[in-house]
């Protein structure tokens, strides 16, 4: 029996797109044929191989330092997916812990978390992460850290509302009456109820992390200059868009495909896992 979420068209398309990006990231050294930072200053700003003046060795052309765009594109997927795979779960863990405790305990702790989220979310998220990057310095690890610090609130706000609803159910009270302690109630009764929502939010957050990383790299506050990221490529290609359009277009399409994959997956999961929809159907 195939679970219902796996039969949703959105989920399948999303998974296929993401599997493609993941395969490209893992197999980058095999597929690229050359290192992404290998410079050829005699062959800068080459157009794509099928265009006039193109070189068969550089399928998508080269950038202003003569580096192969195709190789950089493949290696860029590694940074994007690393950030998505670490920053999103990190933000999720922080946000979920805060949401569980705030929604379950209530009282002053809930008030404190609620106000912290309000203040946090009143900053535009990109500006906040830019400020954080200025303080932390560039590098993949700091990008991940900045995204976690900014985006835990997305999880916290939505999950807290869900925890509030679940914690008021009689079965949570009943668990306390048969002798469950608070920790066990949280782990065994409350947490399983929010898992479907959690998975959905996590998937969407991965897409957001990819975009945020690209923005930070675009303004030069993301990864270190010797690392390869799609945002950097866009920044580089921006000034030479007429000579070598694929310098700009290729990373834009890559970001689009990756984020679309995460969003389709998240949207499909939301539709097939949403507790309220399921309970409504009986």
């Amino acid at each position, binding site marked *: 029996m195939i679970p219902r979420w796996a039969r949703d068209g959105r989920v399948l398309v999303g998974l296929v797109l993401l599997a493609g990006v993941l395969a490209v990231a893992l197999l980058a050294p095999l597929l690229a044929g050359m290192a992404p930072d290998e410079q050829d200053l005699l062959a800068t700003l080459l157009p794509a191989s099928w265009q006039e003046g193109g070189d068969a060795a550089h399928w998508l052309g080269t950038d202003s330092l003569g580096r192969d765009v195709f190789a950089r594109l493949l290696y860029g997927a590694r940074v994007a997916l690393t950030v998505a795979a670490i920053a999103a779960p990190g933000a999720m863990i922080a946000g979920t812990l805060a949401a569980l405790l705030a929604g379950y305990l209530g009282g002053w702790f809930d008030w404190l978390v609620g106000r912290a989220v309000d203040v946090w979310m009143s900053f535009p998220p990109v500006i906040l992460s830019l400020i954080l990057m200025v303080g932390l310095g560039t590098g993949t690890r700091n990008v991940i850290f900045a995204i976690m610090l900014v985006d835990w609130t997305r999880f916290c706000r939505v999950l807290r509302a869900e925890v509030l609803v679940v914690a008021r159910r009689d079965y949570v009270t009943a668990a306390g009456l048969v002798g469950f302690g608070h920790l066990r109630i949280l782990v065994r009764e409350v947490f399983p*109820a929010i898992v479907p929502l959690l998975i959905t939010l996590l998937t969407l957050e991965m897409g957001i992390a990819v975009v945020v990383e690209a923005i930070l790299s675009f303004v030069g506050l993301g990864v270190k200059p010797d690392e390869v990221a799609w945002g950097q490529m866009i920044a580089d290609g921006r000034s030479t868009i007429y000579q070598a359009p694929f310098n700009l277009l290729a990373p834009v399409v890559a970001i689009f495909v990756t984020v679309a994959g995460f969003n389709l997956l998240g949207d499909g999961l939301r539709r097939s896992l949403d507790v309220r929809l399921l309970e409504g159907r009986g």
Partner: protein
Amino acid sequence: MTLLRAEGLNVTARIGPLTVPALRDLNLSLAPGKVLGLVGESGAGKSMVGRAIAQMLPPGFTVSGRGLHFAGQDLLTMPAGDRRALLGRQIAFIPQEPLSALNPVRTIGSQFGEHLRRVGVADWRAAAIAALASVHLPDPAGLLERYPHQLSGGMCQRVLIAMAFASKPALVIADEPTTALDVTIQARIIGVMRELQQLHDTAVLFITHDLRLAAEVCDEIAVLYAGGVVEHGPAEVVLNEPLHPYTKCLLLSAPEIHGPRRGLYTLPEQMPGLRALAEIPGCRFAPRCPLARESCRNAPALLLLKEAHRVACPYPGEVASINAGPPAAAPEVTAGEILVDVRGLGKTFRTGTPFKRRAVAAVRDVNFTLHAGEFLGVVGESGSGKSTLARLLMGLERPTAGEIRLAGSDVSRWDGAARRTRLQTAQMVFQDPQSALNPRRRVASIVTQALEAAGVPAAMREAKAAEILADLGMPPELGSRFPNQLSGGQRQRVNIGRALCLVPKLLVADEIVSGLDVSVQAQLLALLARLREEHRFALLLISHDLAVVRYLCERVMVMQRGVVVEQGRTDEVFANPQHPYTKELLEAVPKG
């Protein structure tokens, strides 16, 4: 002369590839000025009749038949526009949930005015005030300026009744108009409805699950089972000399508030769902019928005519032989051991803003004792503090005054020792199994949750789960199901089973049979009586249904606005109530 006549009315539901008749070959007629009761348990199709008249069926349902005539016109064939013109003017509705039927952001006057202008009343304000006065609402002019949430449920329902009768319709369809209301308010609502009905000589189609209420209100009664009328006749005849086994069983399965105590008849299983109906060839009641024989399972039942009394059963002569048996004997309570001792218990809730504090006393100065093995009923209307009392006993609320002693130790303190005493002594059964059962746990895991808390290994829990399920009268394979795969009655059993897992000395049950069909309620009451013999626990049963308390409990406590106004032996209190509120409660119960 008939006002409404249904001839061979069918409502068909399409479920996936199946087409199932939700209403089958329904024949009804209603004369002007008469009240016809449609009685049945949930799933009988009684609301479908009203919906078919209004042509407001759920998606996937279609209506057909030889005719559905209203005042000489066929509602099935007339253009939708003409039918809409009839609705609200000639045919009016009284809904089940008064609060959700009124728009919360508009005043009563604005909604009433809109309705009256639509039906063509020029001076709508005067007409609305007159209509509201006719349902005995105080200060009708002031009421027009108020919003629905400022009124009680009973007042909202009276507003809706006033609206329904305002256009002087020929037919009013009332779909469970009092189900959501307290019993004393129900009596008032029914009184108001009767008064207007007689004043305007209106025909009423009264849809209800309560056979006794129907008998009190209606001239004629049609009993529905699984989409078909099984018995139809004058109200008194149907109530006193039922000729269909289902009607008889239904009457016997509800406990009574008057007369000698008797046992309850427990029908097995429950009414088949729409999907299952397709697979029952003959009489649809046959699988549960005590009189069923081979011929019932094959030939579709015929409608026998006996003057004005029609019955869909070929063996009406045998119905009188169905009996409920003697009442479950209450075990002798050893007067010595006091299990619960409550003295001067009070709970005051503080609400409002820091600037304007309000104190609401939910429970005031409650004193009672409960002996080991004794069943005590707590009755009262919503808001009387019954549920707060239960929560105080279970330690879910902290008392603001007084003392609770459970099995000899003071549990009104708020510490670990009190919590341990409570865990070992008392358990609670919650009202709504939908909310009380974790939808992600299997049944076996729910009923053994107390063992999981105590750290008992899984294999032993598994064995205990099978034991508990057998105790609850459920087959062991249900243990691997999830709660939403069970029927309402089964869910409530699981709910009870979880509380009984560690065999507590005290069970606190909050409205555990309300909202269930009478046949399912009878099964649960029988279960409680049987479990009591096996496990000898004491029960604090909170209920708004006096008959249930009378059936199950030796002693009763009547609460009003947080205060216990009367307590004593159930038979004495019900036979000879002292407090005016107890008298009012008892008088409000429909006698049939």
